[in-house]
């Protein structure tokens, strides 16, 4: 009989133990979770064998929310409490949502300028909470399948997602108690799934038409490094729009009143969606809605869809130009998203790129599979992997200047992480404060760009106009999240914000939502924060033990080595018996002690990377 290995209580697991990591595709219409097992990435099914989880949540009075198919089945019956496609609302204000142009059955809560809350029998729900409920269901599936708490997850977002939308996605993960290893752009994930990272060199286009969003990305691949050269798309274009176009056609043909009830709308959209799917196989379908009967043929459908598909092709042209490549340099075209099953879409894409697109992996699963492969690497399960994804920011970031104009600080398609500073000055004599308004977008006028955040720099010494030097620094991290700070140079007065987008949630709201989410959970807040700190402590211990084993002797004096060794022991002790706050403090202490060591190691890494170049070339 094989003996089971059990480690000493409180000891971190042996470094070679596999981490439990998953990839999550949080989609507009459907979501999936996938993981890597014995080298293969596979999507994880629910108990009835279904991998796809409809991104639908139904709230019920006095009971836990229903998520997925059960919820979707109730959509027509209970439209006000059954929330669909909330991804379209993430990081958006009510104004934007109305601009989506579709008839929405929901009742929205009082508008306060932020992300809209939807009225349900369980109170007001933010799109972030709804997404968290979906994520929680998927994470649970991962836990059951992998046999324990997850070490981390990669969650995918459209490459086109702006700052506010990314932040909202991260907030949802936080609510669902998921450790996010990385937000990954969906198209990049798709390219990884096709193993295109194994090719030596090449330019790849990813055409991703989902239910609610369209993305085009141009990637360059060279020896394991993926560079996103350009991204573009339309965050309000998707297969749902085909359904709406068909529904509107039926409304016109049947001469129906435009004021349909929510459940009538749902029924009509379901008929439309079904017709669209059938017409990829057949050349004409019979339609029936209420008293009305009619027929839609493929030619008519194509005419309804062409203007929408044309919008996607225009975005392709633009992205290719932004990438600085020509059409004939593109070696592969990858199709992603359920809507690429639509025959007409395939035809038009093939005609535009003059090559047959790649379709061998299920376009609904390809993103989750790529995310799982990346999660496996980021969690440290594949230390020899060469794969690195260098992402860019999808939209330019800038500041409002006089006259309602936007001064760009970081141009779109800049590789992240990135930091850039720009200097500004005062407009009036004696001006002592400055309003900093952070914007995202390509247009020149403030009104045409998306407002991300506003804050003030106060206490500028009174000077004549134009004499003060205010340095504003933008920092974007590897997940694409922005921090802005401002400093007056002569006095050093500083002010800064982690950009909480205008449509984001403040920390207080998140805490309240966290509490709410425990209403139907077994765990409470304090046990969760203790567990979070314990997990962080384990991570720190493991990283430091591995680092000491690898480079400790070479880089540290005996005294330094034993100091760090002692720090590890004391953190381990604290991990076992300490409160959340005590563990946090101990982690901080160990962090400070090991800072110098970490910097030394980084230096060694760089020298290693450049080994063999420096000397001879510098001599030249």
């Amino acid at each position, binding site marked *: 009989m094989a003996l089971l290995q059990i480690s000493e209580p409180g000891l971190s697991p042996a470094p070679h133990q596999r*981490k439990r990591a998953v990839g999550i595709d949080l989609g507009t219409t459907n979501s999936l979770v996938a993981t890597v097992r014995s080298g293969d990435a596979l999507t994880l099914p629910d108990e009835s064998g279904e991998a796809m989880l409809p991104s639908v949540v139904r709230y019920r009075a006095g009971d836990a929310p229903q998520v997925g198919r059960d919820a979707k089945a109730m959509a027509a019956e209970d439209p006000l409490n059954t929330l669909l496609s909330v991804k379209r609302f993430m990081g958006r204000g009510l104004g934007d949502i109305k601009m989506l142009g579709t008839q929405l059955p929901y009742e929205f809560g009082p508008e306060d300028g932020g992300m809209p809350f939807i009225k349900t029998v369980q109170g007001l729900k933010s799109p972030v909470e709804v997404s968290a409920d979906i994520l929680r269901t998927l994470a649970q599936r991962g836990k059951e399948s992998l046999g324990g708490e997850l*070490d*981390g997850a990669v969650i995918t977002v459209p490459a086109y997602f702006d700052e506010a939308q990314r932040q909202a996605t991260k907030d949802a993960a936080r609510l669902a108690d998921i450790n996010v*290893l*990385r937000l990954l752009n969906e198209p990049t994930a798709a390219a990884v799934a096709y193993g295109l990272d194994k090719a030596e060199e090449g330019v790849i286009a990813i055409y991703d038409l989902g239910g609610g969003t369209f993305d085009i990305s141009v990637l360059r691949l*060279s*020896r*394991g*490094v993926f560079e996103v050269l350009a991204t573009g798309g339309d965050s309000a274009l998707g297969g749902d729009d085909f359904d709406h176009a068909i529904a509107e056609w039926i409304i016109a043909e049947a001469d129906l009143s435009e004021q349909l009830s929510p459940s009538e709308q749902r029924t009509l959209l379901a008929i439309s969606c079904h017709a669209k799917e059938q017409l990829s196989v057949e050349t004409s379908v019979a339609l029936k809605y209420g008293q009305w009967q009619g027929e839609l043929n493929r030619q008519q459908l194509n005419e309804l869809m062409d203007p929408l598909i044309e919008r996607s092709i*225009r975005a392709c*042209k*633009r992205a290719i*130009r932004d990438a600085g490549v020509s059409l004939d340099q593109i070696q592969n075209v990858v199709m992603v998203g359920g809507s690429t099953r639509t025959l007409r879409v395939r035809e038009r894409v093939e005609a535009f790129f003059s090559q047959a697109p790649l379709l061998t992996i299920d376009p609904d699963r390809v993103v989750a599979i790529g995310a799982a492969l990346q999660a496996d690497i*980021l*969690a*440290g399960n594949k230390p020899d992997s*060469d794969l*690195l*994804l*260098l992402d860019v920011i999808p939209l330019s970031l800038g500041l409002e200047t006089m006259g309602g104009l936007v001064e760009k600080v970081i141009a779109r398609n*800049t*590789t*992240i*992480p*990135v*930091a850039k500073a720009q200097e500004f000055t005062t407009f009036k004599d004696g001006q002592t404060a400055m309003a900093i308004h952070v914007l995202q977008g390509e247009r020149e006028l403030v009104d045409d760009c998306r407002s991300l955040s506003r804050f003030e720099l106060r206490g500028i010494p009174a000077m004549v106009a134009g004499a003060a030097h205010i340095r504003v620094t933008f*920092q974007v*991290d*590897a997940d694409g999240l922005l921090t802005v700070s401002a400093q007056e140079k002569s006095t050093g007065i500083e002010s800064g914000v982690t950009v909480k987008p205008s449509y984001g949630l403040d920390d207080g709201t998140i805490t309240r939502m966290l509490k709410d989410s425990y209403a139907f959970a077994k765990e409470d807040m304090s046990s969760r924060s203790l567990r979070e700190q314990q997990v*962080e402590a384990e*991570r*720190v211990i*493991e*990283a*430091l033990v591995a680092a000491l084993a690898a480079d400790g002797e070479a880089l540290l004096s005996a005294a330094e080595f034993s100091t760090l060794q002692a720090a590890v022991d004391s953190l381990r002790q604290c991990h076992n018996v300490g409160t959340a706050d005590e563990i946090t403090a101990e*982690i901080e202490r160990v*962090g400070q002690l*090991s*800072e110098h060591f*970490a*910097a030394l190691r*980084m*230096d060694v*890494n*760089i020298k*290693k*990377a*450049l080994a063999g*170049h*420096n000397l001879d*070339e*510098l001599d*030249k």
Partner: protein
Amino acid sequence: MDISKNYFQLFGFPVQFSIDEPELSKRYRELQKDIHPDRFAGKGDREKRLAEQFSTYVNEAYQGLMVPLARAEYLLVLAGVEMDPQNETTNDGLFLMQQMELREALAEVPSHENPEAALDEMSAQVKQSIELLLQEYETAYNAGLFDQCKASVTKLHFVTKLSREIEKLEAQILDY
């Protein structure tokens, strides 16, 4: 890593204008492979933060060397030559005249009978003048004539701006 290292030292290149661009890209990717925050995703927050800083600097340095105009300006910074490109003007009359003509030609492109061909021709012209100005810069830099370098950089800003306007118009005309 020493952030006080200049961009050239960071990538192991001599401080000079000409640079082997494919080799620079190669070294950039090798560096990022080792220090990108993704390499520290499962580790403690502090290591990730450190990686974030280094990776940011490597990106900045790469952009600073890869774009010829940025590289030209950076060499002047290293040489201690001050310049404020936003407010520099050129007093080279001939150059200004050419610029004006080019701008006029650009304004007429939309009414041209074949605007696409007209744009292509302009792009080629602008590209060539950028090449010439970069050569001019390099010669001046190698001879230590920093005032001439500054003049070239100022002109390069003019021409680069024009090339951006050509791109913008191209996008409009070709309906991107």
